[in-house]
């Protein structure tokens, strides 16, 4: 299959003040990346970003600060090299000082998702022994348990809908 190949960067936005995290949105991130690339590599670097269908923020979680960036494959290293120079993101009139921490580079979104699942669970497991009181421990335990889908219920629901269909005619 012929396709445009790209790379997906799974980055974590680290902010000094966590409250600012919720101010983030995809346009702000996009603008910040663009600015920095322009600053670092000039017009040569910014040119690939003009193809908006290739350069995108595919996912942004404002609570955890996880962001998926999509770059064209042929020049992703160039663009990646500009990411450490982002120091602040301008969003809704606020200037959020932050830096990007690239966790994973993947060829598809799927691999990034799989990595993220692994990474997050790992983080939760790491947090567990460091808890200071019992209450926190309990909460984190609960969070870890929540990390899985409830399979049985979903299937049962599907079955029911199928038998309904049979009745129709």
């Amino acid at each position: 299959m012929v396709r445009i190949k790209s790379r997906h960067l799974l980055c974590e936005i680290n902010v000094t003040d966590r409250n600012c995290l919720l101010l983030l949105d995809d346009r702000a991130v996009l603008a910040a990346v663009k600015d920095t690339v322009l600053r670092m590599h000039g017009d040569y670097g910014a040119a690939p970003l003009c193809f908006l269908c290739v350069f995108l923020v595919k996912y942004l979680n404002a609570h955890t600060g996880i962001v998926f960036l999509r770059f064209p494959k042929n020049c992703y290293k160039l663009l990646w090299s500009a990411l450490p120079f982002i120091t602040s993101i301008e969003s809704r009139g606020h200037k959020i000082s932050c830096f990007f921490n690239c966790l994973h580079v993947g060829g598809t979104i799927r691999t990034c998702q799989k990595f993220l699942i692994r990474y997050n669970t790992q983080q939760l497991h790491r947090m567990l022994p460091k808890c200071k009181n019992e209450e926190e421990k309990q909460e984190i335990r609960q969070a870890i348990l929540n990390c899985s889908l409830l399979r049985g219920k979903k299937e049962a629901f599907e079955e029911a809908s199928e038998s309904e269909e049979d009745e129709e005619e």
Partner: protein
Amino acid sequence: MLYTVLSPYLFTDETTILPKGGDPSTNRPKRSHHQPGWVRGHQKDGGDYSKEMPKYITAGGFARARAAEVKAMLKAVTKRPASCHVFETLPKHMRRRAMSHNTKRLPRRLRLMAMKLKKKEQTRSKSRKARRRHGNLLLEFNRRQRKNIWLETHIWHAKRFHMVKKWGYCLGDRPTYKCYRPCYRAMSSHCLLQDLSYYCCIELQGEEDRLLTGLSQLTSKEAGPTFAAALCLSGRRQGSVVVYRAGQYPSQPLGPVTFLWRPRTQGSTHRQLWIWAHPTLKQVLSSINLRSVCDCSEAVVPVVVPEPSPAEVTPTVDSEPKPKTTPGAKRKRSSKDQSGPPAKKILGDGTRSPTTPVTWKSNVTCLICCLMCCSDLTMEIIRYRLIGPQSHTVITEAFEAATSCDVRFMKNKESPSSLWWPEHCKDENKMHLHQQQADVFHLLKGIFSTAELPPGTILGLTVDDPRLTLPTKKVKALPCVKERYIISTDLELVLSGVSEHCCQSFLWDRSVRDNVIDNKISEQELNRMRSEVLVPGSRLPVPPQGRVPVLLVHQPGKQVGHEMSSWGAGWDLLLPKGWGMAFWVPLVYRGVRIGGLNMSLKHSQNKSAPHFPHDYPDCPAGVHFQEEQEAELLDKFKRRPPAKRTNYIKHGCLAPFCCPWQQLAEEWEHITREGGEEREGAGRSRTTTEADTVMEGRWRPLVRMNRKSLRLLSGWCKPTTSKGQRACRLRLPPPSLDLSAVKSFLTSHRMTLVWVRLSLLSGGKPELHGIVCVPTSEDLKQLKSSKKAAAPSLPSDKTVEKETELSSASDPNIPITSSSPLDLVLGLWPDPLPSVASHCSRLTLGWVTQGDFSLSAGCGEALGFVSVPGLLNTLQNQPMEHRGTVLLRNPTSLQYRFAKINTRSEPMHKFSYCQ
């Protein structure tokens, strides 16, 4: 694109998705428009986050945020791709040949999913042979007719027709092949056949006087003959009436019904009455009205015969004794069949549970003969309708009057036979009656056209099983041309119809009916008999159980208007249930066309008769039908993209999908009242108070009028017939249309609608919900100046456009930036409609409910309703030669067309007899 979008909630190419609800770090109350879960798109009003943020974060919040993300990701990763094949998730190099066939070729982690998919497919498909096996097929059919009743001809129809589910039945709507014109030709020159078995029959039994007093509450003499009309009461004619809710005569009509009285038997006043009603009418009619009117409240729960064991059932289903020498395989299957539930063909109503009461008796049983009984014979009697001038030819060719039984049977059966016909053959009187009926039936052959007979004639008859005389090929039944009316009896038949005693039929007898149904020869048996005949193809001997009582009921044709009079007359054939296909196929083999629901609508349209649920906006069924139609049309309209829709606002059409009758009537009432005030102020106070009282009650448009006022109205608006010809038959001068007469007429019919026929003077085809408008005097001048009626047609109505644009600009609801985009449909007026009467440049009188090019009249014809005050107002202002001219405009066009208005000269249901 690079990737299939994995989850519509998670990833889209243009937008980022921000998790909003279920905010893990805060426990603020959710805002009303924040839906829980994932919300797509930018949040315009998301600026107030900082206020709600906590001062510090806890490990719990942090963890919960991570957990939520993981969960979402898991969901996205494990989601199956859009395609149904599991192996498409695999990369290419891991795919193997025939993976979907053999699941073991899949990697193990995908196997479970694939197995599940495969199992789902498999449950559906038994082998075709197994599915088509007779017992299994019957079981399947029985399962499928649990919800909607199937007519006996269902399978026949389902192979040839587009089926629709309507009124709890599966009915054929229109054939899959093109046959609109052939069907019309069949109706006007040969014969068209329809299965009307879905009509419901309600049987009333009891003392004649008590029945009549009870039924008189449902009708009124003002609206025409009632159940008590002498000819109908004698049983010689079928009658038709519009019934009302008991005792509520002018206000709450229910709908039209036809009825048959059983002819009197000597020395008994016990009578039997069949009322045939449309299925939408049946519930309210039988449960509320008839039962209360006849005070039959005591339900007779039918005795549920315990289901006979399978061993007993099998011999009755196929009466042929099983030969001992069946091959082993077959015997095995039959034994297997017996272990399972026996598949028995459903006759009659399959959806009704056997314990539902169908008969209600009156609890006042003072005398034995005084017992009144109301029972529901739905699907017990089959009704076929033959339309067309040659339908009698088809009937006479397809059926033969029953031959009397052989002496052989008479001789060796001294003991009473289980079959009804041999018993009847012993009775001299009955045989004499049968002979007379057969004579009348033979006379039918000599008649030139079905329409010659007096409308509503009934003929009782017993016929041989028509399958015995089935021709090997389809032949067209042709009339036998002969010198007409040599015999005086022939003439008598045409003039006065069938004499009273010949209307008697054994179809009325439940016992005979049951006997006939139980003893029907199976198709298989018949084929065996055919194979045993010495000369192949010769006539079969009539077996003793092969006689069926039937009733032939004449249906009147077109009764209004002057051209094509009595078009579409025909016969109705009433049969006992179970014999449906046995009579259907022989009829079809006589070269008739078959019509569906669509054709019956066209039939009544060409006949200029109102069709039941369509043209009765005052009946509950009609209101329901209109709502349904509106929803359907609106749905169809909404399916088109907004740019491709008809812009009804620009076309000046307020209500293209429904007709706000009530609003129209009110507005016209208002307009006429204002006009009246200008002329004289005296009657003012009185009119307002009366109008208020009308408004207070829940009002439905009054459509029905009594005969006298209808005649007056039709006289006023009928100086000419349709197409502009002078009425030659109209000897009386039209009643003068002076002010006082109109005023007195209006006081009683202020908020009434009247059913009219419109025929276009020039070309054009009226459509559903076209607008009937009042022509201005300039229009009429234009019509007068150009000699040919076809010439003057208004130029595309610029004023309409301008007006609507103006009004839409001024109306705050119209612009697209409306506050409620959900209930706003582009191209339609938003809900509170402005004044409907004075919306366009011409005043609206009413709307068309059915419109088409009428093949019988040769011009566009429409049926619709107009407001009575509006009509009178129009008539008054028009010069004599153009009286009754209106304008008609389709909802999708700007072109007005001249049309001639005709109110019918008889009430909606002209009683079916002629004096």
